[in-house]
């Protein structure tokens, strides 16, 4: 059986006079599914910081549940209620002289409670104290009890969507392409320079024309005629 959206299921984690902290009260469907152990680890003392605490926890079987819990130090009146025996004269303690503390509250499925009602916590505490008195009566043989659900007065709040899975990027090594390109450019430059240096010595430069000879009686006829240099032409005046 699963919880309705507006039902609260009391639970209790406490230690006895001799036995240590354990789940003493839990929803029957969690007990039947052997899935109530997460309560021991999800519910921790408040440390005096707040009157209650809310949290969302996931059981070992993957059930996502909203938890609301508070602390209560056990008093003599708590233990005397419903008992014919006279109340203890001193504060109830364990065998190590420490006060007895209850971590009690209620849980619900498919919703969260941000601002729990005092009535809901009071009902949970009543259920928890009943289980706790039975636990103290026989600590060694007590087994976790199944809690009875009740209609919540607290206004349920919608659960936030589950967080998106984080996208992790594999770190990439810085590429060595720039280094490789640089070396390639240097190689081509070196090859080009060597080629240029070696190719310029293959063809000899054109020879210089023979210098003009001195005047003689017989001009030597040549096939090529030479053109006497033109007379220098004076530059026009700039007029400036």
């Amino acid at each position, binding site marked *: 059986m699963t919880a309705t959206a507006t039902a609260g299921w009391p639970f209790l*984690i406490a230690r006895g006079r001799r036995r240590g902290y354990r789940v003493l009260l839990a929803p029957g469907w969690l007990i039947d599914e052997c*899935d109530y152990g997460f309560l021991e680890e999800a519910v921790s003392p408040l440390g005096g910081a707040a009157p209650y605490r809310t949290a969302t926890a996931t059981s070992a079987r993957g059930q996502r549940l909203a938890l609301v819990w508070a602390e209560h130090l056990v008093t003599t009146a708590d233990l005397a209620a419903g008992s014919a025996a006279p109340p203890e004269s001193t504060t109830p303690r364990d065998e190590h002289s420490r006060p007895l503390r209850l971590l009690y509250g209620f849980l619900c499925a498919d919703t969260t409670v941000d601002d729990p009602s005092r009535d809901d916590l009071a009902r949970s505490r009543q259920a928890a104290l009943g289980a706790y008195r039975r636990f103290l009566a026989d600590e060694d043989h007590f087994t976790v009890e199944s809690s009875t659900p009740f209609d919540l007065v607290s206004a349920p709040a919608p659960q936030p969507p589950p967080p998106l899975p984080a996208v992790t990027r594999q770190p990439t090594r810085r590429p060595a392409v720039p280094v490789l390109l640089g070396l390639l450019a240097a190689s081509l430059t070196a090859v080009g320079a060597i080629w240029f240096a070696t190719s310029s010595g293959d063809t000899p430069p054109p020879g210089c024309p023979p210098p003009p000879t001195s005047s003689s009686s017989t001009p030597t006829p040549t096939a090529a005629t030479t053109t006497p240099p033109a007379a220098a032409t004076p530059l026009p005046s700039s007029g400036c």
Partner: protein
Amino acid sequence: MLGEHGIVVIAIVVVATNFVVFLIAAWMRRNRRPSPSEGADGAGAATVPTFRVVALGLQGSGKTLLLTSMYRRLQTPGDRGFYVRAPYDQLIELNRWYQQVADTETDWPEGTSRGEMREFEFDVMTSVGESAEPVLRLGYLEYPGELLTDQDAPGSTAQTRLIASLASADALIGIIDGLRIWQTYHGEARGRLILHAALDAMIHSMLPAACPIAFVITKWDLLDSLHPDENTRLHMVRTLLMGIEGFRDLVRVQGTRRVMRLIPVTAVGHDFAVLDHGEVRKRPDGQFRPSNVDVPLAAVVPDILRQVELSLDQATRERILAEAHRRLRPGPLEALQSLSSFAAHKAGTAVVSAMGVGGIGTLALHLFVDSQLAPVREQASRLTGLDEADRRAERFVQARRRVVHALQDRVNVLEATLPSSRLGNEDWS
């Protein structure tokens, strides 16, 4: 001049040469030595060893109070030259516990629940050059003692996590409840039953352990009435414990390979609480003065050093130290990075079998080498001629050595005042 074939040959030679240069550059990048700025921080951060301590104690035995008082004692340097520092969220909780314990008008803390199981981490701080830096890190697991005796609820993982922590612990501290010893002395059956259950849990975890082990007697103040002389009191308790077969066998088996100590501590002091009709009450005028709460952790590191030394034969020890001296000539930074592989090769099997697998073997070797090299005052001259990274690494090594010596001094004081604190038959003269 060169023909076409010559040009091609030259081109091939040039390209091949540059390719070789590229390969060499890529290999050097992969094995690049850290720059001085990186090495300065890398040497400190990479070689801060973390010692994880698990205290084995049943519910109500005093694990949380021991943690609280131990931190209060060590959070300032005093005359030790070092102090511990916790993360701020843990500091808040430790202070809250301390206030609740030390206030005579409030009740004792309610006890650790399964939801409060976690590890407290303390940096051991000391001066390294001009600033205070962590040279060691200590982890102390806080958990409810019923995890050692009671079955986990279906779907709970607390017990599995505790067992994993025990298996990987670098040191185990067995917590023996002084109240149970008092009850056993006075013939109370319940006390004797719980004492034996506690010792059984220790035996199960400690018998196969390779790490250092110490025993702590908590609530030592409740045993003041046994005898006026403290060492005599401790001897009486030691005799009672060694009269229990399982405990005696544990000490005999483990005592041949490691130092084992029986450390009496009181987390509140001798004038703070009183045992009244089976109930431990705070005195209205109680004086909160813890005693010996710093010794259990102070014993961890030196005991690791001793265990390393015991595990090495004389020839191997001399080879490691000779190699350490040789490697320290170029600089401690390179030595720190390369010594571990040499030492692991020379003594790996012995150290691993003595210390257990994992990084603690290598780190313990570092501490062992630190403790065996030249005294601190001779190292001052070594700082000259080193570059900045190596100077920093040298200062770090010296600072850690000072802390280890201070821890050992604390243990030496305990052994001098309480000779009965030493268990086992190994002579450490």
